[in-house]
């Protein structure tokens, strides 16, 4: 573990002795991500592909980089009311300051959302407003210099776009929006990080972030079918690229390869099988997540286009989506606008319960938690929650389903039905006030480990409190990035607590028709004898 953090510790406000308007053009080790490889940029036709590294002095920018950035800023001010408003309306009241997990974990004032935004705002004032051009620093205006640009890179890639600050802002100023547009500007001159662009390039070519080819996709599914048969005695049929299915199922690809996500995927398979839904997976639209969201709206759109295109090709009626955080930001708030209208699909209706998902009547994509909660509510799933009795469970709301969707009760309803011991973390750390895992928006890489472990402090502390109070030993979640990164965070801060997706617990509790007597859960652990 490379986190140079003395554990345990109190993190204090830790400003630079200099004024914040002086750019901090040197990154802190462990808090910046490696640059994107030129190959990824070439695959995606992005500008300025080259070998470079943030720890070198020369970032190999194009000669007219300043012109490109300022022109890009002006263009975005004309295209986004949000940006224009967020540049003008902030009163720097400070309500957002300690709502950011990265500020709480690092004490670095430039991780306060207000100052992260000011990094861009100061250039807006200094280059685009009369007062700023005339009076400069006196009115908080800065000129765009290479140092300022470097500072943008460091701090826009220390934000997970979790939107917690925007809940507390009296004007709804959303740092995620500023970070997203700031990253778009950086992308214009080739300042990208590899953990975003490498998956994005793979997703563009193979349909998923991990670069899983169609035959490998099939092989993985076969493996899951075998594993499920071992546990349940039932052999499932997993339809892939099947025309004539009613529903296309799209999930984050991370769950195809890594623990504990694979158990979540097995949970989907079990639930979909038992529900009797006529559905199909797709190898072409084999990614619900969208790392384009972390680079630019255009890249987001290019990756997202596959979902509707594949739904049209396969002739399904509507789309069902798996457990993934930022995927649902894209589906709920961008997909229909970018790649719709989905007039070739039908308003989603569950063929099992007859429920019309009127809340998805335009986008025509339903969240699997909505679908499963509806099944349970109508008594369509037989459940044996005691099979999860080795777990004392709490639930981590992922940022995007919470703050860009409001999917709060459905997962809780499911949890209360599939396990016997469920405990909430403190109110300030759940639902719309949930704390980020500290690794979203492309920051879940190895080189950012110091930042990740620090940014995860608020979540880890909340888990610790229910661990001590209720003996919680499982942190459930509804996001593939969570499943990939929370185990590391737990291991570092609260080592006794494991991580599982919602549908893993569904899969454990679900009584299949014709199943054998289960002696283990999906992980192969004995049903009895868990820590309680």
């Amino acid at each position, binding site marked *: 573990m490379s986190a140079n953090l003395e554990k345990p510790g109190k993190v204090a406000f830790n400003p630079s002795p200099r004024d914040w308007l002086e750019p901090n053009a040197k990154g802190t080790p462990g808090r910046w991500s490696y640059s994107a490889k030129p190959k990824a940029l070439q695959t995606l036709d992005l500008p300025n592909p080259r070998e470079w590294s943030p720890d070198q002095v020369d970032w190999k920018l194009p000669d007219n980089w300043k012109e490109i950035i300022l022109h890009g800023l002006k263009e975005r001010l004309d295209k*986004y009311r949000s940006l224009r408003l967020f540049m003008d309306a902030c009163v720097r009241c400070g*309500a957002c300051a300690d709502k950011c997990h990265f500020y709480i974990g690092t004490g670095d004032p430039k991780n306060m959302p207000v100052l992260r935004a000011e990094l861009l705002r100061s250039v807006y004032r200094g280059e685009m407003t009369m007062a700023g051009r005339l009076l400069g620093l006196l009115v908080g205006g800065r000129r765009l210099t290479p140092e300022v640009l470097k500072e943008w890179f460091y701090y826009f890639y220390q934000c997970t776009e979790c939107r917690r600050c925007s809940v507390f802002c009296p004007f709804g100023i959303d740092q995620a929006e500023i970070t997203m547009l700031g990253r778009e500007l950086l992308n214009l001159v080739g300042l990208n990080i590899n953990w975003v662009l490498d998956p994005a390039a793979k997703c563009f070519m193979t349909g998923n972030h991990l670069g899983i080819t169609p035959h490998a996709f099939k092989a993985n599914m076969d493996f899951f079918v075998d594993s499920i048969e071992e546990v349940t005695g039932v052999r499932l049929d997993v339809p892939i690229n099947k025309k004539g299915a009613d529903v296309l199922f799209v999930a984050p690809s991370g769950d195809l390869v890594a623990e504990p996500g694979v158990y979540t995927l097995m949970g989907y398979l079990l639930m979909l099988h038992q529900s009797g839904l006529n559905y199909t997976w797709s190898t072409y639209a084999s990614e619900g997540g969208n790392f384009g969201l972390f680079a630019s709206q255009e890249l987001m759109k290019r990756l997202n286009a596959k979902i509707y295109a594949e739904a049209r090709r396969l002739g399904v009626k509507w789309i069902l989506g798996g457990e993934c955080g930022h995927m649902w930001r894209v589906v709920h708030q961008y997909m229909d606008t970018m790649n719709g209208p989905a007039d070739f699909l039908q308003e989603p209706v569950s063929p099992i319960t007859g429920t019309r998902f009127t809340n998805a009547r335009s986008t025509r994509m339903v969240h699997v938690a909505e679908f499963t909660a509806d099944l349970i509510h109508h008594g369509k799933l037989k459940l044996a929650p005691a099979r999860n009795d080795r777990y004392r469970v709490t639930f981590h709301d992922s940022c995007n389903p919470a703050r860009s969707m409001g999917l709060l009760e*459905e997962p809780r309803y499911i949890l209360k039905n599939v396990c016997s011991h469920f405990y909430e973390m403190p109110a300030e750390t759940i639902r719309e006030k949930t704390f980020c895992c500290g690794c979203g928006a492309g920051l879940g890489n190895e080189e950012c480990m110091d930042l990740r472990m620090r940014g995860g402090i608020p979540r880890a502390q909340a888990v610790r409190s229910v661990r001590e109070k209720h003996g919680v030993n499982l942190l459930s979640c509804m996001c593939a990035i969570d499943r990939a990164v929370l185990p590391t965070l737990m291991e570092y801060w609260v080592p006794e607590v494991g991580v599982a997706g919602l549908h893993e617990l569904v899969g454990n509790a679900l009584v299949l028709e014709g199943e054998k007597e289960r002696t283990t859960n999906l992980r192969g652990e004995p049903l009895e004898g868990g820590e309680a």
Partner: protein
Amino acid sequence: MKAVAPLLAVVGLALAGWLGAGLSGAGLLFGLLLPYGAALTFLAGITWRILSWARAPVPFNITTTCGQQYSLPWIRSDRLGNPHTRWGVAGRLTLEILSFRSLLRNVRHEWVDDAGGAAPRLVFRASLGLWFGALVFHYSLLVVLLRHARFFLDPTPGCLNGLEWLDSFFRVGAMPVFLSGITLLAGALFLLLRRIWTPWLRYLSLPADFFPLYLLLGIALTGCMMRYSSRVDVDAVKHFCLGLVRLHPAAPAGIGPLLYVHLTLVCVLFAYLPFSKLVHMAGLPLSPTRNLLGASRMARHENPWNYPVKVHSYEEYEDEYRDKMKAAGIPVEKDS
């Protein structure tokens, strides 16, 4: 330094008003140029500003959802925190404007030592000082502004008399004291002191954060002084103000230099407002994280500048993997 320079600027402006009162052209300057100039700058500036926001499109629905979505009929949705109707949005904005609802959520984080000697704990404590201070400050400002309307309206509407009666409910001796004036001073002072005393807030603050507070403090102070110590001739003030409104301006006569100071600061405030963070008041109703529907899968949001992008089509994908797909038993569109 960031807190001192704007103080000097406001003191300088006040002095200019004080000294200017004695100049021979004072009537022209304070009775005509300054008020009309400020009013025009304010109107033009705020119109330009709001238009510049309103003209920019809202390409995406980026609502911040602060509560349960509208989904299944048996799950109760949060109609204000995550509205799925226009009425809900109106309610959300109204509460935000009238009660500063988002600030009401404010907490501050704190590290506390564990009693049992375990690692320190991160806790959150309610922190409503900012909410309360801001509410007192803004409502006081509103009442003070409304009370001043009596100077510009003849006859004075009854509701303003009622407001004054309420506002002057408390008396010091026989003299009625306007509560709003006192609370405005207290509110502005609170906002100023928290900015100076809180280390992280002081660090992030700009001169532009202190300047309007000093300006408002100066305005409120001179206002209170005119009312309670120098006891200006209210009728003369009204005569002057009505002259401005009726476009028959006359120099303020026999009122004293304090009015000139007050007037100068007010004019600077109005002229400064559209070009500063003070425009925040106009921004809230336009804020896309607050004024759009939370249920964005229900109705399509149009992006006026949506444009076609380069994608990797299924055909290209199948061409690349066809043989392997066939070998794995995955259906394909074309055999070769």
